[in-house]
């Protein structure tokens, strides 16, 4: 498939800085922000500044942001209320010998906000919490095995990083069992085979895998899982790190109508301030306390103040409803543009966290061209990873993006001729 020439943003300074970085930083930019996951040459590598739903790269290019920092930004960059709460806490204390009173205040607020939550444990990243959750489940059940969905992402700890990545050994996965998404019978069989050995089942609320179309839970899937877990004494863990607070303020279990025993949150809960949390049911609280798990910055007070302000503001402005509305507007607009150009776009996932594929292009060549071209015109679309909407996106932003998409679609068409 030919890559048609196009005009648009240039990324000269990004490339120069990347070159410098490659001499002193492995991979120059590692992990999920690595350019290897995008289309280098068509994307910025470094951010200069950000406000609302927009950011500016070091070349001076401005983007309407549909990745939101890969999820953390939910109210908008430089959000006045959140930043004010953080600044006020900063003026008092941040990382000291003890937690601040804000820790208790935030925990109480979350226990009231999230129906299944009787307690809260704080850390920094989503991966801190998924690992903590399986440790708590093992402590609670005195069992070793963990069931995960094939290809679900739970962070970068060895137990959940695929064999083949640097430093991961086959033994790291000794007690990890895999089942396919939406395969309730497969889970039932696995439980039968390993009866009284499985400590926990952990999954994301729906199937959102990089490079793939998102798949929602089949009717009865989560309820069925919940029922098996209850009858077999298996702890049901919801990894809500990516979707949490975008579908429902009570967690995605509330959205999909089931009750996890533990829920892991991070990303959106601090609007960009570094914080994560695991919430759980009373029955697991004692076991959770027995897990020795900590980090130098996990009790820092500033992110907790920011998180409390974020959660309160999300509720106050009914952010979930607005984010969904903006997501629908974007996706409907893209589908319509595709139709107008004779290219069928297949959206997937909830509107707040959408992704698109071009029908008849399972290899993503068209995604790579389309998303690059939209990005080079000023709206940041990731070609391989689900997108994120925020409460800072307004109709005028979506309309501007649809104009970028309209122009980009012409390049996609040209690549097919």
């Amino acid at each position, binding site marked *: 498939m030919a890559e048609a020439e196009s005009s648009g943003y240039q990324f000269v300074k990004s490339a120069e800085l990347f070159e410098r970085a490659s001499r002193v930083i492995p*991979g120059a930019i590692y992990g999920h922000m*690595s350019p290897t996951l995008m289309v280098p040459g068509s994307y910025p590598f470094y951010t200069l500044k950000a406000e609302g739903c927009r950011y500016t790269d070091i070349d001076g290019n401005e983007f309407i942001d549909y990745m939101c920092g890969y999820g953390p930004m939910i109210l908008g960059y430089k959000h006045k209320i959140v930043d004010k709460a953080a600044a006020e806490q900063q003026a008092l204390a941040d990382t000291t010998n003890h937690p601040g009173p804000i820790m208790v205040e935030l925990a109480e607020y979350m226990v009231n906000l999230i129906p299944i939550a009787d307690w809260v444990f704080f850390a920094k990243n989503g991966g801190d919490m998924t690992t903590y959750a399986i440790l708590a489940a093992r402590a609670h059940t005195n069992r070793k095995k963990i069931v995960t969905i094939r290809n679900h992402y739970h962070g970068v700890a060895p137990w959940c990083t695929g064999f*083949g990545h640097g430093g991961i050994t086959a033994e790291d996965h000794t007690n990890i069992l895999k089942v396919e998404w939406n395969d309730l019978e497969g889970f039932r069989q696995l439980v039968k085979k390993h009866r009284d050995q499985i400590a926990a089942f952990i999954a994301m609320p729906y199937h959102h895998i990089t490079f793939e179309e998102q798949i929602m839970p089949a009717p009865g899937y989560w309820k069925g899982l919940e029922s098996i877990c209850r009858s077999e004494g298996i702890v049901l863990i919801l990894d809500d790190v990516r979707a949490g607070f975008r579908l429902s303020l009570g967690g995605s279990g509330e959205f999909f109508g089931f009750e996890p025993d533990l829920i892991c949150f991070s990303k959106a809960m601090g609007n960009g301030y570094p914080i994560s949390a695991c919430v759980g049911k009373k029955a697991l609280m004692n076991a959770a306390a027995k897990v020795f798990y900590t980090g130098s910055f996990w009790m820092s007070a500033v992110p907790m103040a920011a998180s409390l302000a974020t959660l309160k503001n999300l509720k106050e402005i009914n952010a979930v409803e607005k984010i969904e509305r903006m997501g629908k507007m974007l996706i409907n607009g893209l589908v319509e543009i595709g139709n107008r150009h004779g290219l069928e776009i297949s959206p997937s996932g909830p509107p707040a966290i959408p992704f698109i594929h071009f029908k008849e292009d399972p*290899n*993503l*060549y068209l995604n790579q061209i389309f998303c690059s071209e939209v990005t080079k015109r000023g709206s940041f679309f990731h070609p391989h990873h689900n997108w994120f909407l925020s409460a800072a996106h307004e109709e005028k932003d979506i309309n501007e993006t649809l104009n970028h998409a309209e122009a980009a679609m012409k390049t996609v068409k040209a690549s097919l001729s």
Partner: protein
Amino acid sequence: MEAAKELVLARIHLKAIVPLLEDISEFDSETQQIIKGWSKPIQFQLAGEDVAVTLSFREGKVFALRDRINKSKITLTFSNAETLNAIFQGRSKKSPRPNLTGLFHLKKLLQVDPLLKRIEYYMKPGEKLLEDHNSLEQCVRLTLYAMAFGVKEIGEHDPEMKPLAEHLPDGLVEIRVKDGPAVHITVKKGAFTPAKGRAEKPSAYLEIADMETAWNMVQGTLDQYAAIGSGKIKIRGLIPLIDGINPILDRLSIYMAD
């Protein structure tokens, strides 16, 4: 090295490395000189295993079949994988055992070792050889071929990599140097079918900008992540297929480094 891995390495030697003589005989005058007048096929095989490669000789060129043949040939049998690997890696002076036909071609057998040494000449080239662009391209081409066929052996037989390979997406991945050599590998349900040259419609491709970058990549001295970011390597299409093959390629360099 444990027995299962010795066997995988033996498979790599016989099915990915020895067949390179086919390509080397196309341009290497020393190889052409060694095989001058040869007509009887030579079959290399591993005792007790279904692993063999047969070299045929026609009009001064080598033709490799990654299998046994039924017609009359010289057969060289390696007693076990460990011995085979030690011989190929120059750690043993032992020789494979010839069959009766081979005993009638002792002079020719003495030339097998120098013939195999021509592979090493290009696979582990000296700096001087790499200074010449054409030679560099030949080295890159041969290493890419070895990689493509080595991936098959590892993906299908390495006890740790096999489960990973079985979960790769089906598709066709092409690895190419811009305006240079290329290989492609078809992956279907954990089985690999490698081939030389470009593919018509790859599901994914990895394009290396120039020969120097390609050489560094195949030698494992390139930061591939940085190279992709800087545009020295371009990947497009079904990237999980490339991502999935990458650890298998890494494993190949570990095998070959031993």
